């Protein structure tokens, strides 16, 4: 399966709307094997889907994702000291690679990270001596012989338990979590600080980046995202609201305030406006699977950076440049502050990000071709092929094209994820989850 097939418009719907949570989806993430797909929502709930195994009897069901587990990860809290409510909305979910039969994921709201264990139980012990099958205690006088309980198969039960709760380490809102390749540590990031945790230890964390100025009135820049390098366990990167990325090496010093590398593209003076800074604010960063590149998303573009070249990005892709002339309105209705995520496909050849009107965009890095697709109920009957969409700037509108003015800015695709190996994508549009895959067998 190569990326080129995507642009033959053969993405089809395999399992859309199989589950409509009551709340707006706030994060989606495949696990490292692609077998599981987790969504977090505004109500603090996590729903995990599992991919159907191929069976000879039902080959057409290959690849469908069904609900595997649902649990309440976070509850709303009240900070009595500050008289503030802490939202239960799940900001991010990150899976740990599977090391045994159970699955582990980290989920976080604004303040607290939790480690959840999802495990199956398909057997239960039966044949107790002191109690019968219903659990009622047996009268000891009726027991005449002893038996050894044996494990008998039962219906599959999936249970989720909170194994660790990492709390009280963030004054500001957590925007990212990232598991280290060493599988022992992870970082959690808020607007001003990055903290390093050991997965086993919940009552302490190390602060490794702190950009809080001594006088808060001098604050002009915040951290917007951070991620560990996929292979180098000592390297991580964080992005800022000013459009810069800093790559840090934890071996150099304990407090990584000084960066190893600083990535920033000089501003183009011809496009400068009062909104330049806001639209340069990076909403998401993702290392490529290879670890050679770093992708960043700002309001209008996606950029791919070569880690060896700091002064400008390797590639820049326009997501919705037709919005450039509408920045004032988008500022007025706050859409300019929307934080879109971006994702790599498994081979790092295609990148994807969301837009408005429930559109999402894919860019093939090799052929430089791009496509706009839409996640909507009308277009998403199962097995339907997605049709490419086009936005026209104005003037003559061809059939099927959408004008800029008719875009629905309340329908935005902020969160999406790509299967680590296959061409399967999951896209969250408000409270609907869409799963698409290409049809090539």
């Amino acid at each position, binding site marked *: 399966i190569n990326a080129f097939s995507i642009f033959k418009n053969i993405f089809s719907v395999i399992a859309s709307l199989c589950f409509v949570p009551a709340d707006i989806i706030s994060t989606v993430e495949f696990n490292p094997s692609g077998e599981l797909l987790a969504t977090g929502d505004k109500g603090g709930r996590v729903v995990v889907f599992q991919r159907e195994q191929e069976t000879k009897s039902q080959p057409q069901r290959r690849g469908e994702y069904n609900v595997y587990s649902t649990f309440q990860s976070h509850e709303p809290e009240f900070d009595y000291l500050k008289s503030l409510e802490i939202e239960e909305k799940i900001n991010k979910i990150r899976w740990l690679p599977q090391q045994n039969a159970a699955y582990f994921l980290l989920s976080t709201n604004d303040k607290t990270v939790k480690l959840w264990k999802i495990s199956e139980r398909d057997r239960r012990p039966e044949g107790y001596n002191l109690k019968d099958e219903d659990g009622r205690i047996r009268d000891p006088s009726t027991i005449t012989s002893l038996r050894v309980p044996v494990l008998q198969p039962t219906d599959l039960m999936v249970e989720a338990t909170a194994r660790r709760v990492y709390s009280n380490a963030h004054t500001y809102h957590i925007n990212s979590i990232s598991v280290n390749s060493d599988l022992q540590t992870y970082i959690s990031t808020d607007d001003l600080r990055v903290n390093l945790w050991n997965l086993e230890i919940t009552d302490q964390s190390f602060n490794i980046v702190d950009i809080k100025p001594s006088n808060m009135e*001098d604050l002009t820049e915040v951290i917007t995202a951070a991620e560990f390098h996929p292979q180098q366990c000592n390297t991580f990167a964080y992005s800022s609201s000013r459009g810069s990325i800093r790559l840090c090496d934890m071996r150099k010093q304990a407090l990584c305030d000084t960066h190893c590398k600083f990535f920033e593209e000089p501003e183009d003076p011809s496009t400068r406006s009062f909104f330049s*800074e806001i639209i340069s604010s990076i909403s998401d960063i993702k290392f490529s699977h290879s670890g050679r590149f770093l992708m960043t998303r700002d309001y209008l573009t996606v950029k791919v950076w070569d880690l060896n070249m700091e002064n400008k990005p390797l590639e820049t892709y326009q997501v919705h440049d037709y919005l450039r002339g509408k920045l004032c309105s988008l500022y007025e209705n706050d859409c300019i502050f929307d934080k879109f995520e971006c994702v790599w496909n498994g081979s790092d050849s295609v990148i994807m990000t969301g837009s408005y009107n429930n559109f999402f965009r894919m860019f093939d890095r090799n052929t430089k071709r791009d496509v706009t697709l839409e996640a909507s109920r009308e277009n998403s009957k199962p097995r339907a092929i997605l049709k490419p969409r086009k936005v026209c700037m104005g003037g003559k509108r061809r059939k099927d094209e959408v004008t800029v003015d008719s875009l629905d800015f309340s329908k935005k695709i902020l969160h999406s994820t790509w299967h680590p190996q296959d061409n399967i994508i999951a896209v969250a549009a408000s409270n609907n989850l869409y799963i698409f895959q290409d049809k090539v067998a």
Partner: protein
Amino acid sequence: MFPKGTKRKFSDSGDEPPAGSDDVNQPSSAAVRMLSSYSLQRQSLLDMSLIKLQLCHMLVEPNLCRSVLIANTVRQIQEEMTQDGTWQIMTQALSAANAAAQCSADRLVATEVLCRQTEAAQGEPAPKPFPAVGSEGCSAEEVVVVEEEDEGVEGGVIMSTVSPQAPTAYLPSTFGIDPCWEEETGEEEDEDEDSEECASGSEEGDNDRLVEDSRTAEQVFGTFEIKNPAPSPDPALEELFSDVDASYYDLDTVLTGMQSAPKMGPYDLLESLSSHGPSPLSSSTSCRSDLNELDHIMEIIVGS
């Protein structure tokens, strides 16, 4: 900077007409229109940004990233306006207006802004950028929001006072909004203790904050202060304040509407404010429904 003999229109307040010392040598009207249009746009962007920052305070916990970005935008505009001299004009007018003010009326900055915009919209030339603020003292348009202690309103009130002192240093970095960014307690300056009680907090907290904020207010535009109304000796003003209560509730209604329907832009807010400017008296029935709205908001804020 302005040609002699030329009547200075409001819309030209930020402009520097390129040539001429009298009407004959006026630059082409198109260029002037373009400049004034830019100036107006810039001004409206500034106003919008200030309102957004004020509304940040209203939220339970302000989004730091958003606040920083908006504040940086305001700073940029401020710097540009300082460079072309508009800023000094505005602040001088403000201080002059304060000196002439008959009362220590609390005004929403947006209202002054609104007056300016209204003037511009009506096409009336004004001798200076803040005609309404001037020697008239407190007109109904300006006194928008009043905090009533016995109403138990906390933190939801956003009012600002134009600083009585002449603002001397307009440091771009100082804004009264800063306390709201600081979420830590204790170790920082006193402002910070009350920083997060923007949306809710004790009356005492508000009073403490007043003291702190008055320091920053001196340096600043005069925004984002939360003050109790100074008791006015003037009975006419008392009446004025009581009229304004209704406006306040409507402000809350407007803002509630804003939270539930985020597409409502700040200009709608300004419109709502302006709609109460000329006719401060509201019917008691609207007051009652607005009171219910207020209770509702307080419930949300306090999280009962």
